[in-house]
C-alpha cells in the first residue's frame, strides 16, 4: 500500500498515512485530486479505480471515506477488508466510532493504524492483539498520569 486517506463527505481530510516518500506539495496535490475523484463517484459504483499507475480502493462508512492506494500487484478485495478491519478496530476502541472521535483523538487513530499496518503492510490482523497493544499503552498512560502533579485550574478548562 502506498498511502491511506480518510476524508469526510465535505472533502475534509481527517487522516493521512503515507508509506512512500513524497514532498508535502505532492501529498497535497494527490489528496486534492483523489478526494475530488472519489467524491464525484456515485454510491453504486465499484470500489476500485485506476488512478495514475496505482489502484485506488475506497469505501464509505457513514460520513467518512476510507481510501487506499495500492500497487498493480496488490489485491483489491483484501485491501477492502483492510479498510473494514481498521474501521472495526476504531469502532471497538472508541465504542461505535464516529467522525468526531477521529477528529478529537486523531493521535489515537494514528496509533491504532500503526499497530495494524506498518510500512503499508498488514502487521497484525488479529483484532484482539491490536487492541491489546493499544490498551496496554493506555494503561501505561494511566499510571503515568497518576504520578503527575496536579495541573492548574485554568489549564483544566483549556485556557492555556
Amino acid at each position, binding site marked *: 500500500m502506498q498511502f491511506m486517506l480518510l476524508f469526510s463527505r465535505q472533502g475534509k481530510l481527517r487522516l493521512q498515512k503515507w508509506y512512500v516518500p513524497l514532498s508535502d506539495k505532492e501529498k497535497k496535490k494527490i489528496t486534492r485530486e483523489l478526494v475530488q475523484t472519489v467524491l464525484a463517484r456515485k454510491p453504486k459504483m*465499484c470500489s476500485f479505480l485506476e488512478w495514475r499507475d496505482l489502484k485506488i480502493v475506497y469505501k464509505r462508512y457513514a460520513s467518512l471515506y476510507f481510501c487506499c492506494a495500492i500497487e498493480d500487484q496488490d489485491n483489491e478485495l483484501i485491501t477492502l477488508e483492510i479498510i473494514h478491519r481498521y474501521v472495526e478496530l476504531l469502532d471497538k476502541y472508541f*465504542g461505535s466510532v464516529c467522525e468526531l*472521535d477521529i477528529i478529537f483523538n*486523531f493521535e489515537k487513530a494514528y*496509533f491504532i493504524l500503526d499497530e495494524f499496518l506498518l510500512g503499508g503492510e498488514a502487521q*497484525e490482523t488479529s483484532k484482539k*492483539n491490536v487492541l491489546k497493544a493499544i490498551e496496554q499503552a493506555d494503561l501505561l498512560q494511566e499510571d503515568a498520569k497518576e504520578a503527575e502533579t496536579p495541573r492548574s485550574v485554568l489549564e483544566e478548562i483549556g485556557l492555556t
Partner: protein
Amino acid sequence: MPAVSKGDGMRGLAVFISDIRNCKSKEAEIKRINKELANIRSKFKGDKALDGYSKKKYVCKLLFIFLLGHDIDFGHMEAVNLLSSNKYTEKQIGYLFISVLVNSNSELIRLINNAIKNDLSSRNPTFMCLALHCIANVGSREMAEAFAGEIPRILVAGDTMDSVKQSAALCLLRLYKTSPDLVLMGEWTSRVVHLLNDQHMGVVTAAISLITCLSQKNPDEFKTCVSLAVSRLSRIVSSASTDLQDYTYYFVPAPWLSCKLLRLLQCYPPPEDGAVKGRLVECLETILNKAQEPPKSKKVQHSNAKNAILFEAISLIIHYDSEPNLLVRACNQLGQFLQHRETNLRYLALESMCTLASSEFSHEAVKTHIETVINALKTERDVSVRQRAADLLYAMCDRSNAKQIVAEMLSYLETADYSIREEMVLKVAILAEKYAVDYSWYVDTILNLIRIAGDYVSEEVWYRVIQIVINRDDVQGYAAKTVFEALQAPACHENMVKVGGYILGEFGNLIAGDPRSSPLVQFNLLHSKFHLCSVPTRALLLSAYIKFINLFPETKSTIQEVLRSDSQIRNSDVELQQRAVEYLKLSSIASTDVLATVLEEMPPFPERESSILAKLKKKKGPGAVSNHLLKTRKACLTDIKGISTPSPSADLLGLRAGPPVTAAAPSAGSLLVDVFSEAGVNDDGFLRFVCKNNGVLFENQLLQIGIKSEYRQNLGRMYLFYGNKTSVQFVTFTTTLNVQAKPVEPLIEGGAQVQQVINIECLTDFSDAPLLNIKFRYGGALQNLTLKLPVTINKFFQPTEMASHDFFQRWKQLSLPQQEAQKIFKANHAMDTEVLKAKLLGLGMALLENVDPNPENFVCAGVIQTKAQQVGSLLRLEPNAQAQMYRLTVRSSKDTVSKRLCELLAEQF
C-alpha cells in the same frame, strides 16, 4: 466508552480543536491558528521550563495544525525532547510528530537516532515497537544507515517478543525498499525464511511481506521459502473455519496471510519437487471448490475475504500458465462473476480475464464470454467497469472475432468518456490492422474512426492508413472511392480531409472514370474544405493539387488559377506561400515528362516502418528540452564482461548489475504493445550510429528516443531525449542500464520531452553494447522496451595522421595472425567515394591520403583510448566496383578490437 474519556484527554487540545471547528470562515481559522502558534512559540521560548505534559500537549497541537494543511517550522526540538521521556504517552506523541513531520536537519537526525537507539536497546517491548514504528514510518536513508544492521539482529534473535518481531520485519522491509544497498544479506536471511513456520500467525503475516520483497530481488537465496509457503498454505486452506481463532475473519481462515502466501509463490516458477507441487495444486483446487460452496455468512466481508483468496489463487494459476485444467476452471469461475450482482466482482473478473486471455490454454475459454463482455461495455453504469470490458475485448480479440469486436468498440466510441477515447482509438486501429484479412474493411474501419472520434485520431493512425493503401494496390481504388464519399459530408473532420487529400492526390485517377467523381468534381470537393483547414492540412492539399495537375491535365488551368490567387501566392504563411509559388512554377515550365517523374506515385513504404513518415513530416529533432527535467546519471562502460569481475574503479562507479535485462517480452498486462515494432532487443537503430553520433535511435507510435553524443579520449557523454508523442502522460517511466541503474524522471507529460545524460568512461575494450531497458505505463498498459545503446568501441578513436612509410611499417609490425581481422562482403549501399569517406571519418579514424598505391582504396589509422590501455588500429578498405564487393582488413594491437571493428564496419557500407 464515551469518546473523550479514552487515553489521557488533553483538554487544551480538545478545546483548541473545538475552536477550529467553530470557525465560520477560513480567515477566522487562520487567525485562531496564528494565535495558537504565537502562544506555543512563547511557551517554548519562555524562561519557565515546561513539564512533559505541557510539552506533549503543545507538540500535539502543532501536529494537529500541520495535519490541517498549515506549515509548521518549529517544535521539532521539543518533540525530540519528548522521545527521551520515560513516560510512554509523551514518548508516543514525540514519535508521532517526528514520523509525520520528518525534518532533514542533520543535528536533529542525530538526536532522533540516538533516542531510537536507546529505545531499541531498552529491552522494553513497547518502547522497542515505538522506535521501530518510527523507523518504518520515516524510512529515510539516514535511518537506514543507522539501523539497517541492527534490525535484522532483533528480528531473528531468539528472545525477541513476537510483537517486536512483527514490527522489526516490516521496518526492515521499508528500509529495504528505500535503501536496498544498505540492507546486507547475511546469516540472518536463512533464519528469516523460517519465520514462515512460526507458531504466531501475526509473526508469519508480517514476516512474509519482507520475505516476498527479498525473494523478488534475490530469488535464489530465498527459494527454500517455496516449500515452506506451500505447507503453510495447505494447513490454512484445510483448516476448519474456527481453528485459527482470532485469525479467522468472517469464517474465512487467515485471509490476509493466505493472500500473501499466494503472492509469495508468484515470485517463483511452479515447484520442481513433485510432492510440493501436488500439494499446491490440491490447495488451488480446494480454493476453487470453496468458491462453489454456499456462503457461510451473508456478510459482504465473508465473500470479499473468500474471493480475495480466490483471485490471488487465480493470479498464481495464470502466473504458472502450465495447468490447463486449472486455467479453464479459473476462467469458468470468472465467467460466473461476470454476471454477479456485485459491481466489484464484475470489475475484478473482467480485469483478471484479461490476463487469462493471453494464455494459450484459456484463450478459447475466455472467448466464449464475448457476448457478456460486449453487454457489459454497453450497459455497465460505471465507466471504470466499462473500461475493463473494453480492455478485455481487446485482449480476447483474434482473427475469428475481430470484425465483431472492432464494430462493438467503434459503436462504443460514439458515447465513450472523453478520458478513454484516445486509448480506444489506438486499440481499434491496432486491432483493425493486426487482423485485417481484406483491406477494404481496414480502410472502412479507420475512416469510421476518424468520423466518430476524429479529434482523438493521432497522426500515426492516419499516416498508417495511407502507408497501407500505398503499399497494397488491391485496396487503392476502394480507398479512393470511400474517401471521396466520406468527404461529401457537409462537416468532416480535418483528419478526414488530410487522408482524403492524400489518397485522391495519389489514386484519384482510379475513380475519375465515373462522371460523378470526375477530376474537377474531386478537386472542387477538396477545395471546398480548404478554407476551413489549418496550415498543415492546407499544405498537404496544395501538394494534392499539384499531383492532380499531373494526373489530370484538364484540371491544370483551374488549379493554376487557385495557386495564382493572392490568398495562396501571397499567403502570410511562408510554407504555404512557398508551395504555391513552387507548384505554380513547376506546373508552368516543366514538361509533362518532367512533371510525371517529379510527381510520380509514391513508392511503397518499407514494411514495418510505419513511423518513418511520421518522422519525416515532423522533423522534430531532439532539440527543445526543458531544463528542469534534466537528470544526470553516471554510467560506466567497462568491458561488459567486467561486470562480474569488478575493476579497481568499480566501487566509485557502482558496477552492481541492475535487474537482468531480458528481451522485452510483452507482459500479460501489456495491452498496447506496439504492433509495428519488433519485440526483443531492438538493434536496427544501433548500427546506424557506428559512424555518426546524433540522430533518432528509436521511434514508435508512442515514444521517440533521440540521441546526441560526444566523445573525447576515453570519455563520452550521451544525451538521451525521450519524447512522448501522445497527449497522455507516461507514468512510472524508468530506464535501466545493465551497467548501472538510477531513476529518471518518472513521469512524461503528453507531448513533452525528458532528457537524460549518461557519462561514459571506457575502462577497457569491449564488444557488447550496453542495454537500455525502458519501462513506462501509458494509459494503464505497461510498455517494455530494450534497446542497445549505440556506444561502440570506435567512439573512443583518436585519429592518427601518418605518412605512407610509417603506415606500412606499422602494418607490418602488427603481423600476428590474430591481430588481423578481415571480411569480404557485398555492398549494401551505392559505392560513392564521398559517402565512403564521410563514413570513415565518422568512424573516428584519420583517413590517410596518398598511402595506398591504389587510389581507389582507403586506409585509416587511429588509436582507441581506454582507461586501461591504448589500442592502435589500422584499417584498409578495398572497394571492387565491378563485383559490388568490399574487402575490409583491420589490424590492431589487440585481437578483440580488430574483430569487433571488422564486425561493426561490415554492416556500414
